[in-house]
């Protein structure tokens, strides 16, 4: 075992393969970009293929290769299940799956793993049933969890080499020029897919909306695309926004949002021209409204908003409260529509967004980011991956990327959820190291990371109730009691890569 910078024990074999986490900026990365194999397309040759079956045959997919998908359709995705079912029927086995993330809707994956079709997985997230199955040990090899920026890095440096990318596209022409903002099942940004298209040997565009050549705007350009398949439906538009843009009336969530907004407003970073990123979820959307109110009052404009984009951000863009949106993932129909209609709503790739190895990711330019947490520990480490029962159920997402990049990183979380304390001695799984986290915001007040003496000074006269992180933990434990530690078995079911490729944690299995 080797102990890393956040105190986690990493088994030797894994530590040797990846190296252990030594600090958020400990690695100065230099790599030669991985190259994609190209077979030219001559005049008169068609890229259109009748069926997914035929496309798989043409790509030459065989046992042992790596395939990828994007998760822009989120819970509405039909592409991955459709393609994997065909691959399984063709008898191809032992594939590595390198999806940008995996949703609840991808439950059939459990069968493909049990049947030996998929034997390795890397992903940002694994949701309820698939995550639980992985935690219960259905795979021989551990899943590798990568952040959105970390995945971009791994693909660019060649740690992941994609043989065939199957990319669902809301619109495409016969030559593969594709975008996500036009069509029946629009998903807005295709930021994750752009990385796959650039670095995969074979790229198959799967669309339910074939349009005349040339299709614009061009998110995925024809020169990266080998084949185009037209199917009846690539996704359910209602599933794309599922759960993401819920406006809250819950007083606890509103209180957290108020405290979070006050923390940002009183911080040295809130000024005209500042930039920010917020995620989804009740408290976060409410916080955005409070910030918007204050920006109107002071006549501030944000220079840009980044990230996962929701409709409320787009409303602020239209109102002129935000100058530009740069968008790697659109969380709802409103965001997809904004990208289509508003030239200041700009699509970027996941590498542009967050890859720590490239020549400067967008997160580096962020002033303020607001993130969520399943758990925060007294070292400010954050878990967004494993549930309080120890089972994998979340997603790494851009959490550690934005946390490392932004000047001010806030975590908004209730002190307790039901009987589960959120502020704990040790998180089950570290996704984002405490050194990236500046302020934890709860319904009863905030805790500032002691390493940020400048912020402690800045908040000296604030009316916000302030606690140490230990005091917040004590208050949580006083209400719910101290939870018993999870009983893990000794099988590593997931390796958690930090964005730079080092190992920040591993997840052990839980017996059923």
């Amino acid at each position, binding site marked *: 075992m080797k102990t890393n910078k956040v105190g986690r024990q990493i088994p030797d074999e894994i530590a040797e393969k990846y190296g252990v986490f030594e600090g958020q900026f400990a690695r100065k990365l230099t790599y030669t970009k991985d190259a994609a194999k190209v077979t030219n397309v001559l005049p008169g040759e068609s890229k259109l293929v009748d069926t997914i079956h035929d496309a798989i045959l043409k790509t030459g997919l065989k046992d042992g290769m790596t395939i990828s998908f994007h998760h822009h359709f989120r819970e509405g995705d039909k592409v991955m299940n459709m393609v994997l079912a065909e691959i399984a029927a063709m008898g191809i086995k032992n594939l590595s799956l390198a999806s940008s993330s995996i949703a609840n809707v991808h439950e059939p994956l459990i069968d493909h793993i049990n049947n030996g079709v998929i034997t390795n997985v890397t992903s940002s997230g694994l949701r309820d049933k698939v995550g639980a199955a992985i935690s219960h040990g259905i795979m021989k090899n551990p899943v590798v969890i990568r952040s959105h920026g970390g995945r971009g890095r791994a693909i660019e440096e060649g740690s992941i080499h994609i043989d065939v990318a199957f990319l669902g596209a809301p619109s495409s022409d016969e030559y593969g020029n594709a975008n996500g903002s036009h069509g029946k099942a629009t998903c807005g940004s295709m930021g994750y897919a752009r990385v796959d298209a650039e670095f995969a040997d074979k790229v198959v565009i799967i669309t339910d909306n074939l349009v005349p050549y040339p299709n614009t705007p061009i998110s995925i350009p024809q020169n990266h695309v080998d084949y185009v398949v037209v199917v009846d439906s690539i996704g359910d538009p209602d599933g794309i926004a599922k759960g993401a843009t819920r406006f809250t009336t819950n007083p606890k969530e509103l209180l957290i949002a108020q405290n979070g907004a006050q923390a940002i407003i009183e911080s040295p970073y809130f000024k005209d021209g500042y930039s920010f990123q917020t995620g989804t979820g009740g408290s976060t959307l409410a916080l955005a409204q409070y910030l918007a109110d204050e920006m109107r009052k002071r006549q501030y404009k944000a220079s840009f908003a980044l990230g996962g984009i929701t409709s409320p951000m787009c409303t602020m863009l239209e109102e002129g409260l935000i100058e530009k949106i740069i968008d790697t993932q659109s969380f709802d129909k409103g965001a997809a529509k904004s990208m289509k209609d508003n030239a200041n709503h700009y699509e970027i790739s996941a590498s542009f967004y967050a890859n720590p190895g490239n020549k400067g990711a967008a997160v580096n330019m962020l002033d303020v980011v607001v993130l969520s947490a399943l758990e925060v520990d007294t070292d400010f480490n954050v878990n967004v991956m494993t549930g*309080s*029962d*120890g089972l994998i159920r979340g997603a790494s997402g851009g959490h550690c990327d934005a946390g490392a990049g932004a000047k001010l990183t806030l975590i908004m979380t209730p002190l307790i959820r*039901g*009987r*589960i304390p959120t502020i704990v001695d040790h998180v089950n799984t570290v996704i984002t190291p405490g050194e990236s986290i500046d302020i934890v915001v709860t319904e009863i007040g905030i805790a500032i990371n002691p390493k940020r003496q400048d912020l402690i000074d800045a908040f000296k006269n604030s009316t916000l109730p302030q606690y140490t992180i230990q005091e917040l933990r004590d208050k949580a434990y006083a*209400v*719910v*009691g101290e*939870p*018993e530690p*999870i*009983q893990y078995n000794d099988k590593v079911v997931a390796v958690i890569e930090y964005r730079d490729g080092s190992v920040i944690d591993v997840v052990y299995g839980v017996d059923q």
Partner: protein
Amino acid sequence: MGKVVIKHQATAGTAESSDIQIVIDGNDNGVDINLVSSVENQFGKQIRKVIRETLDHLGVENAKIVAVDKGALDCTIVARVTAAVMRSADQNKDYDWEALDTWNA
């Protein structure tokens, strides 16, 4: 508090989040607890302990408890178990609050 005898099945609580539903019935020999909890891994032992202690305080020696927990706090568990016991013993009025207060702070 004197002995309480379970006269018939009774329930208290709901299956809502942060609540616990208690179904209590008579039993021949001792206390049996059948608990299903959303926080079994972290608080299962503690929940059983609180149910058992509450029954002890109320003087219930024989009971069968079926509990469905959705992350209730200890105070909620005590309240639901107490209510179920009172209902099962047909004690619908004239509660001995002083006796209850001796153990339930």
